[in-house]
């Protein structure tokens, strides 16, 4: 496998912030100025992006969109507690090695690439035909401090070490995106090596734009109602406030049910797409939902 980096492939990186916004928009991702700037800087300076924020605000989506927009491979490492080198970097294929040894293979052959099972981090530092891949390290807060410390080396030098083979260094640094739901505070040492961005819930206008870009089949009146309702809901004291993913899910549900406008009954039937805790559902369904609906109707008429 030879690295074939044509000049044209490397050149397809956006050259300005506006070009970055356009690139993301072409894949249906509506980014605000801050996120576009961050993405532009990350691509130009080869620094990882660290996205933190509530669940369902489009953190993971950014990685997918960048990979698609630039035509790069996407390598995803889903973090969990107890994640270690054998499930994140590499593992030796013990059974094949054993068989080879029984068949009298040369000792030096036992640790060749043939028996190496490559995991996400090793895949990310290998040459790729389409250019450096996008490495998504998802929900880093789910893993523990020792793994974070391990990542420090991998992310600052873009290299991993397999003791039997030596150091494997990326010919071109991958585009790295880390996400965290902040269920745990990630160590500053890791964040300092990244471009940090706190992803907040989108405002009304941007959420409308996103809904239009993602689900053009939803009529304008219904979108307006859905977005206003969700925006109001986020002001309530809830255990888990609905994210952008919930807005999109809900709109999809309503379209599937051929709903043209919200009504208290429709809300009660479909609230499960928006609120995911029993306490929250009990708090909102019935009176409060009707009240919020009346309020947004009044506001929309006032406009």
């Amino acid at each position, binding site marked *: 496998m030879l690295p074939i980096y044509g000049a044209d492939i490397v050149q397809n990186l956006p050259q300005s912030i506006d070009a970055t916004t356009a690139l993301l928009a072409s894949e249906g991702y509506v980014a605000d100025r801050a996120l576009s700037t961050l993405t532009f*800087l990350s691509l130009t*300076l080869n620094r990882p992006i660290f996205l933190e924020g509530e669940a369902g605000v489009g953190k993971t989506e950014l990685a997918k969109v960048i990979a698609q927009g630039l035509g790069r491979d996407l390598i995803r490492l889903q973090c969990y507690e107890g994640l*270690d080198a054998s499930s994140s970097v590499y593992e030796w294929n013990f059974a094949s090695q054993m068989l080879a040894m029984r068949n009298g293979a040369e000792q030096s052959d036992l640790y060749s690439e043939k028996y190496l099972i490559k995991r996400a981090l090793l895949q990310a530092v290998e040459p790729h035909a389409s250019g450096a891949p996008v490495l998504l390290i998802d929900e880093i*807060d789910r893993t523990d401090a020792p793994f974070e410390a391990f990542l420090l080396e991998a992310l600052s030098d873009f290299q991993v070490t397999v003791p039997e083979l030596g150091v494997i260094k990326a010919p071109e640094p991958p585009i790295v995106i880390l996400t965290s739901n902040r*269920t745990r505070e990630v160590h500053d040492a890791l964040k300092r090596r990244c471009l940090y961005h706190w992803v907040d819930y989108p405002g009304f206008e941007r959420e409308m734009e996103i809904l239009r870009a993602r689900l053009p089949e939803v009529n304008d009146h219904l979108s307006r109602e859905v977005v206003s309702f969700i925006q109001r809901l986020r002001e309530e004291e809830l255990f888990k406030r609905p994210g952008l993913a919930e807005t999109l899910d809900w709109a999809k549900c309503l379209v599937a049910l051929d709903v043209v406008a919200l009504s208290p009954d429709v809300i009660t039937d479909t609230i499960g797409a928006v609120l995911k805790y029993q306490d929250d559902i009990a708090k909102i369904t019935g009176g409060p939902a009707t009240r919020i609906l009346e309020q947004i109707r009044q506001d929309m008429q006032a406009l």
Partner: protein
Amino acid sequence: MADAAGRLPDNIVYFVRALRRAGVPVGTAQVLEALRSVQLVGFTKRQDFHITLRAMIVTRPEHLLIFDQVFAMFWRDPDFLENMITNLLPVITAPPVEKPMKPAQNRAAEAMAAGGGKPRDAPPKEQLEMDAQFSHSDVEKLMQKDFEAMNAAEIRQAEQAIGNLRLDLPRLAGRRYQSAAQALRIDRRRTLQQARRSGGEILTLAKRRAKPRRLNLVVLCDISGSMTRYSRMMMHFVHSCAQARGSDWAEVHAFTFGTQLHNISPQLSIKDPDAALAAIGQHVHDWEGGTRISASLGVFNRDWARRVLSTPAVVLLISDGLERSGLAALEGEISRLALQARELIWLNPLLRWDQFSPQAAGIKAMLPHVSSLVACHNLDSLQDLSEHLNGRRSVDHKARLLRLLQ
């Protein structure tokens, strides 16, 4: 770099200095990177400049507001900020940054005023001699004496004893492995290495087992008026647990509640127990006031539980449980807390009375949901906590009280 951008690098350095004074930690490497990125983005739009600096410098959401305020002030008129920064500190600083200094300053001032005498908190030397004089029965008495009935000297000794208290804690099987002589799992990698040495024959199977891991500790301590006499001692206990982080516990998070919930974990990392307690005293404003157990637990469940209980944790609830209103809500919150904790242990000083019966409505509501109930009015009872954590219940207050309720 300086030639290309004129005075900009200087200004960015000054800006970072202002930020540091406002309590945002910024490393030199970050400043260099920030200079590079500003050049890259160009200095045409104020908004882009703002976003670029912020992405390079801020690493925590709570610093975003400070950054924005300092940015707004500094790039309007740097000199103005230089002059104002000292006055502005209380407004824009995150409180924990400056506060730990205060007790030290006070103590230094006191030390000077006392004519070079020893600071108030330095451990008095004669204490050690007294310890040596203590007979076995004296120690026994101290262990069993109610904190409330102790005199100043005894309290001092009890505080020291708490400082040395080590709990015998259960360990969990982790998801990483270590090699072991006797275990069930085969260490394939080492087995292969050994087989290579013996010419491809597997003579022994190398074994490995799950590496034990420590639990997290979360403490919720009631500091309302009815707990006055115990809350100081409990703070010493919590501090001693927090100092054993890494050896006894994986991580320790602590909160106080009276009328409000306060996170005191940052203050607990101060080594000296008296300085730590002084810092907590400055951070927490509702000492010895009323109590709102249900509301405080509600805030904890909503804002903190997902952050501190995401890994297996023991929750210690230190409270007398004297809540009179909102019992349905209290029951809801305590059951939610119990569901998220690996174990919810209630430390209640009221158990010092043998005849104690759970008549208070708050206690009735909370009792069924906790995994065990332990007394905490003397040193002996704190030792009992070890037993409960290991599942040995010589004295089962919960079962006894539940029987009384029926």
